[in-house]
């Protein structure tokens, strides 16, 4: 996992840095560039591997890796990209929900062996409202543990080589399942955890697999290659899909794939916007008729 992040940051990042240097005529020489690039990649490996760094550095590097991989994916031809996205969404759905699905087996194996699920996972630490009481802390831990399940299972094999079953820090999975069970008995309705999760009550760390990030970025990147209207529409669609997925997570309390809903909405909105909306809006705004 570390080696693949290193490769992504070094080679893919280096290529893009070279494009930018050529475009903006940045005065830099080979050796300085190589040293800087190597340092960047090395720090990146440590940032995603160890959890001792400042969270902002880890988040920054995960976003950078996601962006780099997504950029290279957008170089595929247009139809290939769309078919690939839809096929991956279907695969994710099958792999996580079917009993013979590889990702489900992986999760169950990790739980039974009491190990951490090997994945590059983006963790979004929430902003804690200071005007909320400390009694929220209990709920905070609950929500965090529940979200772990979403993030870990949306990790996908589509990441470049990140799916090697490498053991990292052991997650106390037993505690996860028992807390989830305990949570089900203590929570009267799903509204409770839903509302906690949306930050109205307490807040928890949301974890999202990096594979999901990459494919959302590929979708939006492909949309950007057409027009800005499709970008906004696809962005909103993906956020809506993510919201629906989180609500389903609160409802079903089990591992869920994060790709299908968002990709479905994204692809749908892209084609609807491109075929229907653009003509309508351009007609209206060119004649300065708005509502």
């Amino acid at each position, binding site marked *: 996992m570390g080696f693949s992040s290193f490769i992504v940051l070094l080679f893919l990042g280096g290529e893009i840095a070279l494009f930018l240097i050529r475009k903006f005529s940045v005065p830099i020489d080979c050796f300085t560039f190589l040293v800087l690039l190597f340092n960047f990649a090395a720090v990146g490996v440590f940032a995603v591997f160890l959890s001792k760094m400042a969270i902002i550095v880890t988040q920054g590097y995960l976003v950078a890796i996601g962006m780099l991989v997504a950029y290279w994916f957008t170089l595929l031809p247009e139809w290939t990209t769309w078919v690939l996205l839809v096929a991956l969404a279907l695969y994710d759905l099958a792999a996580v929900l079917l009993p013979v699905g590889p990702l489900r087996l992986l999760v169950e194996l990790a739980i039974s062996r009491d190990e951490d699920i090997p994945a590059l996972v983006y963790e979004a630490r929430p902003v804690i409202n200071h005007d909320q009481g400390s009694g929220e802390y209990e709920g905070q831990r609950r929500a965090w543990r529940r979200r772990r399940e979403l993030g870990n299972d949306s990790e996908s094999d589509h990441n470049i080589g990140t799916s090697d079953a490498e053991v990292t820090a052991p997650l106390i999975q037993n505690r996860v399942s028992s807390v989830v069970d305990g949570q089900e008995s203590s929570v009267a309705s799903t*509204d409770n955890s839903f*509302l906690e999760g949306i930050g*109205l*009550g307490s807040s928890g760390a949301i974890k999202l697999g990096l594979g999901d990030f990459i494919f959302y970025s590929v979708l939006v990147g492909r949309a950007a290659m057409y027009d800005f209207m499709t970008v906004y529409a696809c962005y909103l669609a993906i956020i809506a899909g993510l919201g629906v997925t989180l609500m389903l997570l609160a409802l079903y309390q089990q591992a869920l794939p994060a790709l299908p809903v968002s990709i479905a909405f994204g692809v749908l909105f892209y084609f609807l916007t491109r075929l229907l*909306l653009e003509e309508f809006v351009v007609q*209206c705004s060119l004649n*300065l*008729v*708005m*509502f």
Partner: protein
Amino acid sequence: MTVAAGIGYALLALGPSLALFVTVISKKPFLILTVLSSTLLWLVSLIVLSGFWRPFLPLNSAASWPFAVLIITSVAFQEGLRLLFWKVYKRLEDMLDAFADRVSKPRLYPTDKMLIALAGGLGHGAAHAVFFCLSVLTPAFGPATFFTDQCSQIPFFLVSSIIALAFATIHTFSMVIAFNGYSEGNKVDQLFVPVVHLVAGMVTLINFTTGGCSIGIPILYIIAILTLLHCGKMVWGKLTENQIRL
């Protein structure tokens, strides 16, 4: 005209909304979610409308009456969706109040409800600005600019940003007025919002005539200021009446 001009146009249309977002809405996660969901709702309404009107496009841009029909249908549909948004919000409010009772925290204050309405309106206004103004703004970042025949004094991008600003204001504050009207059963407020929306839409038809935008845009701004004043008066009344009750 350049990157600077492009950014300028974008900020002209979205500046006040951005300021509102950063100061008021970014502090509470729930409001951010409200903004996103109301933006999505507006986008969906726009897609449905464009799906309905697609066979009739491109409209003959000499005649203005097809556009009038377009505006009337669009405004009617969007006002209907506003009512739907209100119903969903009402159910959400009941859920939130029940949750607050369960964890023995105070229920939603009237200011909270008005903030949620403001966030909803901001979502609509931002969506309008983004889809009608920002999405056609891409050429403005290049070296040239564009003038339309009807409004040949100022660049097209500037006109569209100014109109987008007015509409963003109208959308943002009419949502507050509408929610207040629905919750109190105040017929005047309930009618005020669709009427204002329709009138604002029809006023943009004046832009069809040559030189029409020098009449149309000031009227639009008068409508926007009217909405702002009405909303301010209503909110002030609500806040002071609560003070007395406390």
